[in-house]
């Protein structure tokens, strides 16, 4: 798994899958719980979880930028569609928004990560960078 430049795509798929599965289970068995809509901050959050998983499990800043766009489009569009919680047109819109959010978040995160002068003891630096980006996305949505 170490150094796998495609691992980020798999990580994103798994993270979105877990979120979608949670939504299906909650909708079926706990309908009283209000599920937040999948908006830009939620997409950024899922993207950051995938990026952190990629950092700690694959440990590579090399990305297959060519794959990121179609894979994120499919992850954010196709997975919600097969849960039948969204309509096809909404799924397409989610896919496009998710693709934009993931690509931009990956660009920013990778750029920060490459400039982090963290020694071997600075294990929390990527998490703090991710937290900063998430807060930035919230602030962006509040504009």
């Amino acid at each position, binding site marked *: 798994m170490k150094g*796998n*430049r*495609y*691992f980020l*795509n*798999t990580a994103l*798929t*798994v993270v*979105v*899958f877990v979120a*979608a*599965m949670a939504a*299906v*289970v909650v*909708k*079926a*068995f706990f*309908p*009283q719980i*209000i599920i*937040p*809509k999948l*908006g830009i*901050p939620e997409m950024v959050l899922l993207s950051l979880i995938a990026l952190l998983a990629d950092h700690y499990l694959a440990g590579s800043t090399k990305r*297959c930028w060519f*794959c990121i766009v179609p*894979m994120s489009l*499919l*992850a954010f569009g*196709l*997975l919600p569609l*097969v*849960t*039948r*919680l969204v309509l096809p047109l909404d799924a397409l819109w989610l896919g496009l928004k998710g693709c934009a959010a993931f690509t931009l978040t990956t660009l920013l995160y990778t750029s920060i990560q490459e400039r982090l002068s963290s020694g071997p003891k600075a294990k929390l630096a990527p998490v703090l960078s991710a937290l900063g980006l998430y807060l930035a996305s*919230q602030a962006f*949505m*509040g504009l």
Partner: protein
Amino acid sequence: MKKLFVSIGALVLCCVILFGVSTLTQKIAADNARIEKHNMMSTLLPGSMKFKEEAYTGEDANIRAVYRGEGGYVIETAVQGYADEITMLVGVSSEGKVTGLVVRELSETVGLGAKALKDHKFLSQFLNTSEQTEVGTDIDAISGATVTSKAIAKSVNSAVAFVTGADIDSGATAWGG
């Protein structure tokens, strides 16, 4: 390249599992949603156990559905909030008094408008009101979420007006005002 196919395979596998689980739970989800909605409506209109959906033919764009209960109505409303539509159920007695209200769907800002989901102090201000209410005059808004507060007041006003026949301006205005 082989590793790329692993990513694609993972996506396909996730799609198949999700589709399977979604198909298996579809009927359970529909049944539970119906039961939960019925229980919620019984809470909003105390004393009523039976509800019948009635076709709404009025002009108020905020009203989505009307359920007639014993001694009143539960009205489903949808009003534009700050970020997106806020969907609510409002219980109104036959005398036009608000007997209960609950937010069903909301996408407002976390920490501000999203407080409307659980802010009992704010929501309880609408209970037992039978007149048109206005945020700032009759109702104290949620701190930092005036737009959301106004949208909720608008929902309640629409529900009350449906029962009392009051004439209100239901037109969607900017910021749910």
